[in-house]
Every structure is written in structure tokens, then in C-alpha cells.
């Protein structure tokens, strides 16, 4: 399993797309928002947590088809399926690799981009915490979507259609934590709910993803 | 015959119009596709039988 993880990470770094693309996209989204809504600091402060969450979510979505599509094309996915590793393990590792290459950089970049959106000082910690808790869920859910559409020729758009509704609960609670944190309110309830969703998804969804992948490899 | 709908007439009539249109559309599409598929199946089955 660790070998698979290091392989995926090395491939992502060599190809260059994994790390850079998601981050660049995140940066562009956050830079574009003030152009769209105007430069008033008050307004930006108010919407900053939400924008950071939406940006992170879209950057995640953008890189989802890389999770499985390449391995599907060159046949290494079939190879992995016959390996002694259970399919659940494979999809979990794939999701973890995606999180390390996409989610983690986004989490670390979010506070920096928060400066651009004049995020209030109280907000930095909670934006960081909520993204750190929420992005693993995004990766795991995204792996499910990628597994569903792996065999399809133009799966990208369909995958977005399938994955976006599944992102709703995570987005709501994550953005709520960030918003309340930024406004200095108590964050306990949404934080617990966000953690609940994340852990639940991480624990259960790999079984669905593995089932789906087995069907697709039949 | 027509009840007095007052100032909300357009809203009420609008929602009836929208809903009934959608329902009728759904029914018509379903029935047309049912007919088409049924005819297609009969054609294919008939051909298969005459072949063998």
C-alpha cells in the first residue's frame, strides 16, 4: 500500500500537473472574485470564507479525473485489481494520494490567499481547520465519482454533475465553520458536524467506490 | 363559471398551466416512445422469425 502511495505521489510530482494545476486554479479563482464583486474591503471580508471554500472545492473537482483515468488508460488499474491488495485499499490510497497532491496544498495556500480577500484575523485559524477537515472528504467523494465514470470517454463533465451534489453537505458545514470563525462566533456545532461527515465518508465511501470500480473493471 | 381569482389570477393560472403542460408533455413523450419501441420490437421479432 505504501509502495502504491509513493508511486502515485512520484507520478504526480513528475507530471507536474497534480501539485501546480489545482493551486494555480485556486489562486485564479480567488483573484478573479474581487474583479467580479468589486474591491470594497467590507464585502470581501464578509464573503472571504465562502470564496476560499468554493475555490478549494472547484480546484479539487478539476483534478479528480486524474485520480483513476491515467491508470485506467495504461491498464495498470487492471493490474492493481489482480494484486493481493483489496480494492477498498486501492481506492483509499488513491484518495489519499489525491488529497496529498491537491487538498493539502490548498489547505496551506488558503490563509495566504485569505490576505488577498482581507479575511478578518480571527478567520485564518478556522479557515485552515475547516479546510483541513473538509478536503479529505472532498477527495474521497471525488474518488467515488471518478470510479463511477472511469470507463467513459467524456466522463469529466458527467463526473462534475455527479460529484457536485454530493459535495453539498461538506461545503455547507465547512463554509459555516469558516464563516462563524471569521465573525468570531462559536464554531463547535458545525465543526463537529463537518468532522462527522468527513470521518463517516472516509470510513464508508471507499466500499462504494471499490464496488463501483469492480463493476467497471468487469 | 370561472371563479374570481382576484389579484393573484396570473399566479394561480400560471402554475396550473406550467404543471399541466409538464405533465401532459411527460405523458405524451412516454406514450410516443412506448409506441415506437413496441413497433421496433415487433419489426425485429418478425424479421427474426421469417429468417429462421
Amino acid at each position, binding site marked *: 500500500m505504501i509502495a502504491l502511495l509513493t508511486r502515485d505521489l512520484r507520478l504526480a510530482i513528475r507530471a507536474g500537473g497534480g501539485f501546480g494545476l489545482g493551486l494555480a486554479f485556486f489562486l485564479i479563482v480567488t483573484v478573479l472574485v474581487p474583479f467580479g464583486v468589486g474591491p470594497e474591503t467590507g464585502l470581501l471580508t464578509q464573503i472571504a470564507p465562502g470564496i476560499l471554500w468554493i475555490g478549494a472545492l472547484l480546484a479539487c473537482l478539476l483534478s479528480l479525473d486524474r485520480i483513476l483515468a491515467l491508470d485506467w488508460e495504461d491498464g495498470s488499474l487492471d493490474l492493481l485489481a489482480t494484486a493481493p491488495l483489496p480494492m477498498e485499499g486501492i481506492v483509499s490510497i488513491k484518495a489519499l494520494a489525491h488529497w496529498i497532491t491537491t487538498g493539502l496544498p490548498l489547505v496551506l495556500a488558503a490563509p495566504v490567499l485569505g490576505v488577498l480577500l482581507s479575511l478578518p484575523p480571527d478567520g485564518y485559524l478556522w479557515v485552515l481547520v475547516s479546510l483541513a477537515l473538509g478536503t479529505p472528504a472532498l477527495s474521497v467523494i471525488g474518488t*467515488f465519482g471518478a470510479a*463511477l*465514470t472511469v*470507463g*467513459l470517454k467524456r*466522463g469529466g463533465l*458527467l463526473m462534475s*454533475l*455527479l460529484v*457536485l*451534489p*454530493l459535495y*453539498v*453537505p461538506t461545503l*455547507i*458545514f465547512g463554509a*459555516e465553520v469558516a464563516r462563524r470563525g471569521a465573525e468570531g462566533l462559536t464554531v463547535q*456545532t*458545525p465543526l463537529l*458536524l463537518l468532522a462527522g*461527515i468527513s470521518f463517516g465518508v472516509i470510513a464508508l*465511501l471507499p466500499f*462504494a467506490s471499490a*464496488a*463501483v470500480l469492480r*463493476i*467497471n473493471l*468487469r | *363559471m370561472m*371563479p*374570481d*381569482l*382576484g*389579484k*393573484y*389570477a396570473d*399566479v*394561480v393560472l*400560471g*402554475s*396550473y398551466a*406550467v*404543471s399541466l403542460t*409538464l*405533465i401532459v*408533455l*411527460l*405523458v405524451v413523450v*412516454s*406514450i410516443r*416512445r*412506448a409506441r415506437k*419501441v*413496441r413497433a*421496433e*420490437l415487433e419489426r*425485429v*421479432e418478425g*424479421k*427474426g422469425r421469417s429468417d429462421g
Partner: protein
Amino acid sequence: MSLWEYANPVKFIRTTDKVLPWISVLAVASLVIGLIWGFFFTPDDFRQGSTVKIIYLHVPSALMAINAWLMMLVASLIWIVRRHHVSALAARAAAPVGAVMTVIALATGALWGQPMWGTWWAWDPRLTSFLILFLFYLGYMALWEAIENDDTAADLTSILCLVGSVFALLSRYAVNFWNQGLHQGASLSLDKEENVADVFYFPLLVCIAGFVLLFIALVFLRTQTEIRARRTRALMARERMA
């Protein structure tokens, strides 16, 4: 005689052929009676004026939008556990009907909300959940269309339906948490106190019966269509092989 006999496509088609005309007639009859009763012969509500007549479309379609998804969930489970093709096809057949019901519920809701709440659209929890439900229907139907192999499509969509149900439920509670609503409480609960008044209640029941029957009739018809379409495809494939 058990329910599983209807898992046989031929048996299913034969039986539904027999009951379909009756259900259709009943559906049309109760819809016509309920809607005419509701539209022409009920008084205006003292607060909502004539807009109360929208309830005869709004509530039944909203009910069916949710029930259609539940029916798809059950059918998907049956497909996963017992692998009856009719069940998978019935789930597929129900999806567009459910989607249309969702649109009707949203459209009538928007039209109703305009005079009552002063806005076409508000991010009210129930409205938002229905929008999300609609997105789920879209994704489900798109996945069915996208996959060529019938069995693969049935398997994948069933799993999507299961996972989607969990997430739809989660979203429902998330949305509730996120914004307090404008909607009134339950209008059909057994608790008399908070119910809608009797004058509106009985025509509403007839309309709901009409929508349920309409849904059943459409699902039967569309399932038959799917069975025939698949048989046609199988025969064509066999012919090409020969």
C-alpha cells in the same frame, strides 16, 4: 403466487398490460375531479387569497418527487440483492417522472412564493433540498444514458442511488442547519391542529391519489418500454452475430 413472479419480464408486461388501462383511467379521473374540485369549488383562504389553489399541484408533486426517489431506492436495492432486471429498469423508468415532479414542485413553489413571500426564490431549506434533489435526478439519468453496457449501467446507477440517498438526506439536514425556513410546518400530518382546513383537505387528498396513480401508470408504461427496448437491442445484437 409471490411478488417475485413479476420479476419475469414477460409476466410483468402481461400483468401490467391488463391493469394499465384501469390505472390510467383512475389516474385521469381523480386528477380531473381533484383539480376541478380544487380549482372551481373551494373558497379562497382568508390570508392567502386564491393562491391557496396552487396547493393542489404543489403538495402532490412534491410528495411524488420524494416518493419517486424512494421507489428508485427500493428498486435499486432489489436489483443489487436479487438481480431482477425488471427492477433495475423500473428504477430507470421512474427517474424522469420524478425529475418532472421536482420541476413542478419547484415551479409552483416559485409562483406561489412570489405573492406570499415576496420573492420567486429564497434559499429556504425545503426549496434548496428540492433543487439538490433535482440535481441528483439529473446525475442519475445522465449516468444511465452514458453507459452502454446495460448491466454495468444498472449496477452503477443503483450504487449511485444508494449513495445519493444518504447524501440527499445529509444535505437535507445540512440545509436545515444553514438557513431557517419560510415554509409552514406539516400540512398533512395526522395532528388535526396544524392541518389545512377540511375544505382544502379533501380535494387535496383526491389530487394526491391522482398523482400517485399517474406515477404508477407512467412507471408501468415506461418500464414496459425499457424492457422492449432492451429486448430489441438483444435481438439486433444476436442478428449481427449470426
